[in-house]
């Protein structure tokens, strides 16, 4: 797997900053999945497993990518269809986890 420079949010704590950050997370996630699957993904709320764009084989690559890129740790309890099925779900998970890391 290629090495990605980690995207770690350090200073953007304002509401606007969070919005900008979640946009970057979204671009990164969509870019990675499009490169992985060689498919253009227009609807970020559509289920990529039902559509057959992602398969079970991709889950571990996806987990490794998220852990490496956003410096997060993902366990089996974080992986469900609501979260991993759509780009919206993945972006929501990453930003929520980063939010938890920031709060004291």
């Amino acid at each position: 797997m290629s090495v990605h420079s980690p995207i770690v949010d350090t200073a953007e704590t304002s509401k606007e900053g969070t919005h900008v950050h979640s946009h970057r997370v979204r671009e990164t996630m969509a870019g990675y999945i499009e490169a992985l699957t060689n498919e253009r993904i227009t609807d970020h709320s559509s289920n990529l497993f039902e559509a057959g764009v992602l398969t079970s084989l991709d889950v571990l690559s996806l987990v490794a990518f998220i852990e490496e890129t956003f410096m997060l740790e993902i366990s089996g309890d974080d992986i469900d269809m609501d979260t991993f099925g759509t780009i919206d779900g993945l972006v929501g998970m990453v930003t929520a986890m980063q939010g938890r890391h920031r709060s004291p």
Partner: protein
Amino acid sequence: MLSISEMLSRTARDHPDKEAIVDRGLRVSFSELAERSTRIARFLRSRDIEKGMRVGIYSSKCAAEADVIFALAKLGCIMVHINPSFRDAKLHHVIEETEPSAFFFHPCKSAPVERARQRGILPPLLICLGETADRSGPPALELETALEQDHGSAWADAPGSSEGEEPAAILYTSGTTASSKGIIVTHRVLSESTLVSAHLLQNAASDRLISVTPFSFDGALSQLFTATLVGATLVLQGSHFPKDVVTTMVSEKITGFHAVPSFWRMILDQYPAFADCAFPHLRYLSLIGEVFPEDELMRLKRILGETDFYMMYGTTEAFRSTCLAPADFARKPGSVGRPLPGVKIEIVDEEGRSCPAGKIGEIVHSGAFVSPGYWKRNGDATFRRDGVHTGDLGRLDEEGYLYFVGRKDTMIKRLGFQVYPEEIEACLETIDGVSMAAVVCAPDRGSGPRIHAFLVPAASSDLSPDVVMRRCRASLPHYMIPDELAFRFALPRTATGKVDRSRLLAAGEVRR
């Protein structure tokens, strides 16, 4: 013969308000299932869809699939349920070979269906099982709109819709596109296998069965029909993420679970929390389709304590063959049991001679549940006068219990010895730090077949090829030692969850 549509009518009369299908938040009763399937059948008949015509279904798991499946049974149409994990090439192959007169699809399949339509292979009557919001999708009628057009005249089953020997379904196997064959399943096989399965598994109205595989698999269809026969509830489970599966098992109080061993091995491997969960409602597990490595099977048995295990063997060509009853589980480890009523199982060698107890040969099934053949492929060597030559290897013991050994086509002769990839996998999986192993043998010009092993290391292991090779040399005969090792994050799977060896061979993973 009690037909599938008669089973539904009877249960809708006896348990009208009982939950038939659960699809996430949607709960469909038997009376609703009976009524919706009748209305779909009436709609199709108004569009000149008749008995004997093929009708395609291409969908992720949803409640409307059951409506359509029973509608087709009522009309006497031949259901062609296409595995939703099939990509364009295989989708087109199935459509071209079966020539459906109507085609149902889930909105998530709009893009591939539109591509098939542009090739001109789909019928004009396309029905979408949800909303056709996506403008890039094919022009299709929404199912609910079709139902609104129905004005509820009395329904009579199509004349002779339940004649036993006629095809009820064509089910396509996985495998490479060219080799993917449509297995014809008759009304009689569906009816008889439903009655036998329900009796064997002691299914009752109190059961709540989880359905994890697409309805293009015989096991999933069999569960739908046994549930309908006895008035049990079928809970559809689209997600195979372990957390989702476990959540459904607990919240829906699942009593029966039918799956391949790989499915359970995935749960054990990827979701350690499973060992600490309690499943007080889980009455039985039925397992089919692969060898279950004994240590992992016993681990699962220990976790599930009181749950009964039924070990089964069958192929779609011969629907259901054998079953090991829970009472024999401890006494006959590794066995898939005795032939079902009406079934004869024989082991034959390369020359077609019957093998004595203990000797490994091809499993031949004759008697009940045999398919009339492959769709549009007469004279295939699978179907012979003495029965279905399954292409599976097994042996019988002195008491006539069957032991499944592996696939005949994965077995190779190397240096004059028979090599079973499953035996090499079992050895590799005993190595610390190996979570899963798949072995494929590929012919190689000049030097004879080569053994390729694909390993998935356990989390946080520092497995090295040297360690693996040392262990292989220590515990395997020389002709079974892998020629090549490769480490992978995960192994490709079929839609049921089995390791997909053909993809390991095909995806350029193995140099020929």
